């Protein structure tokens, strides 16, 4: 339902609520992002009505909101002043949003358009993005973007160890052949060597000030690949040589994101990369059942970044599997911010950290609205989940780089 308050002919602002009064939370992100893209200013009211947005009252924005079914309320300056006073008095804050970030998604050119949750979310919200893959990354194209997303890519070059189960399937063979062709073209001896180089470029992207958001298996394997620049962690089926027997001790976690003291899974027959993932969904006997995770509440005024990343109209969200579903707490570096975790479980779901001049955010799992996601399953239709709290976490990440930097972060 779109709410158009009457008697507001003189309104100067549009308030886009993000609590249960909002009929389409996901499209509201797109409305705000595109307002910024078109040169408008916006504000993010952290912890106010589920993380509401303040936009200028423009006919075009009203039109877009109506078309997308995004609820909004017209505000005059008097009403806005009351809201600002309320925000100033509580654990809330108003963050200026200045510029729509340039977004890139790392994915092969032939991948199905509905294959990862971020692509789904951006397409549904109407947020433009570019796609790039190994050749572009190695060529240095990451410098053109502010925000990079990775999904279930295996940066160890072992194709998620699906070789045993799917080696004869056409899609797997094609994927492997394409990756090998790229590796040869870029003068790498094999796929693991190429993926390591790609991972290193991504590390440099963050170090120089980029925002990186990863989900599913990309979280774990990107960190592994960066830590393993000088170690062979790929099985012989991937690069012709066995995993270095002392790989665990040779991993350099100082240069990587998020983790420490990780134990690699050396067996090519076990569909797991390491003990980073708490759920081990593809390993019979180790697989843990799904629970629900809880978002932490942060101080909006003193920790605005973490607060922005957890804006939601729900604080408890049902969990969902992915190649990497969660992050074992014992492997998380000190100093990493845990944004969400399952109460009583030895794993976290949602992490954030600074690195160099940039930052990274990891969200476990594949698709917040498809908890069991199997290969070949039908894609998620987000028009059936316009208020998905799990997808909101993804879209928080898209808008947070738009925020004007504040020196207050703890």
């Amino acid at each position, binding site marked *: 339902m779109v709410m158009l308050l009457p008697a507001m002919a003189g309104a100067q602002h549009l308030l886009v609520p993000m609590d249960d009064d909002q009929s389409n939370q996901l499209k509201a992100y797109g409305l705000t992002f595109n307002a910024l893209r078109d040169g408008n200013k916006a504000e993010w009211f952290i912890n106010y009505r589920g993380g509401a947005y303040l936009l200028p009252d423009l006919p075009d924005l009203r039109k877009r909101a109506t*078309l997308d*079914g995004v609820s909004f309320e017209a505000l005059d300056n008097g009403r806005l002043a009351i809201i600002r006073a309320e925000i100033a008095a509580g654990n809330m804050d108003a963050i200026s949003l200045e510029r729509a970030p340039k977004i890139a998604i790392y994915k092969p050119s032939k991948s199905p358009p509905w294959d990862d949750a971020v692509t789904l979310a951006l397409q*549904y919200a109407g947020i433009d993005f570019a796609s790039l893959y190994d050749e572009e990354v190695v060529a240095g194209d990451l410098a053109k973007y502010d925000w990079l997303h990775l999904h279930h890519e295996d940066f160890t070059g072992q194709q998620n160890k699906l070789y045993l189960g799917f080696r004869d399937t056409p899609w797997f063979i094609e994927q492997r052949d394409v990756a090998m062709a790229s590796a040869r073209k870029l003068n790498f001896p094999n796929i693991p060597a190429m993926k390591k180089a790609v991972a290193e470029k991504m590390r440099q992207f963050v170090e120089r000030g980029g925002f990186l958001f990863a989900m599913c298996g990309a979280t774990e394997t990107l960190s592994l690949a960066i830590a393993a620049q000088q170690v062979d962690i790929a099985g012989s089926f991937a690069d012709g040589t066995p995993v270095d027997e002392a790989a665990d001790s040779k991993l350099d976690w100082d240069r990587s994101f998020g983790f420490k003291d990780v134990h690699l899974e050396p067996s090519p027959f076990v569909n797991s990369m390491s003990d980073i993932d708490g759920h081990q969904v593809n390993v019979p006997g180790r697989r843990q059942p799904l629970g629900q995770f809880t978002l932490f509440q942060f101080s909006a005024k003193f920790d605005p970044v973490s607060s922005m990343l957890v804006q939601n109209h729900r604080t408890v969200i049902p969990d969902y599997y992915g190649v990497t579903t969660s992050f074992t707490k014992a492997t998380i570096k000190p100093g990493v911010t845990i944004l969400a975790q399952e109460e009583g479980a030895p794993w976290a779901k949602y992490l954030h950290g600074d690195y160099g001049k940039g930052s990274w955010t990891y969200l476990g799992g594949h698709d917040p609205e498809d908890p069991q996601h*199997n290969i*070949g399953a039908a894609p998620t*239709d987000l*028009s059936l989940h316009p208020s998905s709290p799990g997808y909101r976490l993804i879209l928080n990440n898209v808008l947070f780089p738009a925020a004007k930097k504040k020196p207050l972060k703890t």
Partner: protein
Amino acid sequence: MASRRGGRGTGDGGRAWRRGVARLIVAGVALVGVSAAAGGQEGSATKSPLVQALDLESAGKCREAIPLYRQSIGADDPVGAVLGLERCYSQVGGSEAMLPLVDSLLALKPRDPLLRTVQLRTLIGLRRGTEADRAFNQWMAASPRDPAPFREYARLLLETGRAAAADTVLRGAVSALGRTRDLAAEFAQMQAALGLWVASATSWREASEVMPYMEQAAVFSLSTTPDSLREGVREVFGASPVALRARRILASLETRWRSAREGWLVLSQVPPSDSAVQAWIDFGAEAESNESWLTARDAYVAAAAHRPNDRMLLVKAATAALTGGEGASALALLQPVLASGDSSAAGAVALLEVRALAQLGRAAEIERILAERAGPLGQSGIRQAHQTLAWAWIRSGDLVKARAALIAGGGGTDEDSRVEAWLALYEGDLKTARAGLRRTDETSRDVVTAMALLSRTRAEYAPPVGAAFLVLARGDTAEAARQFAATAETLTDAAPFLLLVSARLWQSSGDTPQAVQLWQRLITDHSDAPEAAEAELDWARLLRRAGDTAGAIAHLEHLILTYTQSALVPQARRELELARGSVPPGRGVDE
């Protein structure tokens, strides 16, 4: 427990344990004696303990049944007693007590598959995984080269959702026995549970060759195969050599996945044989239950060709054809039955013939049947035939003869009233039609259109509207479209509705320019009417189907922005998403 099991079957410990079990059984007998004496149940003395136990269990008295079952254990055939005890102990929460009993019996019959299965089932039910593994290993040791331990344990694990554990057990079977057909069904279930759909299909095909009763299990298991992997499953079941059971499974799957027509294509390729013909007949019934009438007709016709003496197959085929709207086909199928002079179903056949003729508007021939061959129809059949005749006259445009047919049939039934209400509508008597049709529970498109019109206008008499409905009933869609649009000029309070009906009729007759003209008129001249939003949505759908996405988007956006209070806005937003490509295709309306 551990020490007891450790001594089982060996030396004095084993013998002592068996003596203990014997004492338990004796104690059970004593309890029964007390119970029988106390209850004084008449006739129980003549019934065996097992029958008494079954009676008590059926009466929900599991606690009383248990001692009697225990008493029956010593009988020649202890199977019923063991299974009864398993059920009753489970009911009263005492499954633990099964374990020592089964252990004692296994000491005597270590290879008995039933006892072994009960033991495994009990242990799994009690969540004693380690002990279940141990019991499975003992069974394997007792019955080397026997697939039963692997099959039963894997099946039990699958039933509790432990597909990965079942996988381990079945891989063990392959190592120990080599791949065996006896385990194909368990492999198939395990593979389906793990999402290995094509491998599961291969195993199901193999299983169906030795276990025909597994067909339904295969269909159930594979019906949830994701769209993108169904082609692989099709290849497995469709592969040479053509096998009836594999084709039956695939036909059922295709019926669920796509349509009964696709299913029939798969099954019709099986070379004819007694079994194949029976499979076609069964498939015809399945297609009927899916309301795939013409597919059902084809299956029955194919079966009838190989069973020429079974004329009921042709009657079934004709019935399906008629229900599917193929009156001419139904008549053709009935001809051999009529020619045979078979009187066993003469009444049903005559009524079918009447209905088929009515569908074709051949009222004069129905009158001839009623005059010459009404006898087998009976009183009720004659009444039905006259009602059908009235509809046939309506389709011929002769309302006077239609009324006469109703009168000749005797009238007075609900169906007569319904036909009379339609006759009133066709004559333009909207007041009578409104009263008559209000009582109908019919939901056909024609009734919905008629009721919508009657609720939109206050007019009581409008012959041109009736004439338009009559033309529509006669099947002349284009002329009906023209007349509905013309009546909009005179019946002004229902003008937007009549224009929309006209536009839809033009569209269904393929004349989209006429439809577009009317939609434009609705949007321009009747923008306050609810039909304006409907016209916009219909127009957008037409453009999208024609590949004009930009045009469709423009209309959908106009609808959403202009008719903000319309109930069609959510639907328009949904179709706007699909047109923009911002949600995956394939699930939307109008896809």
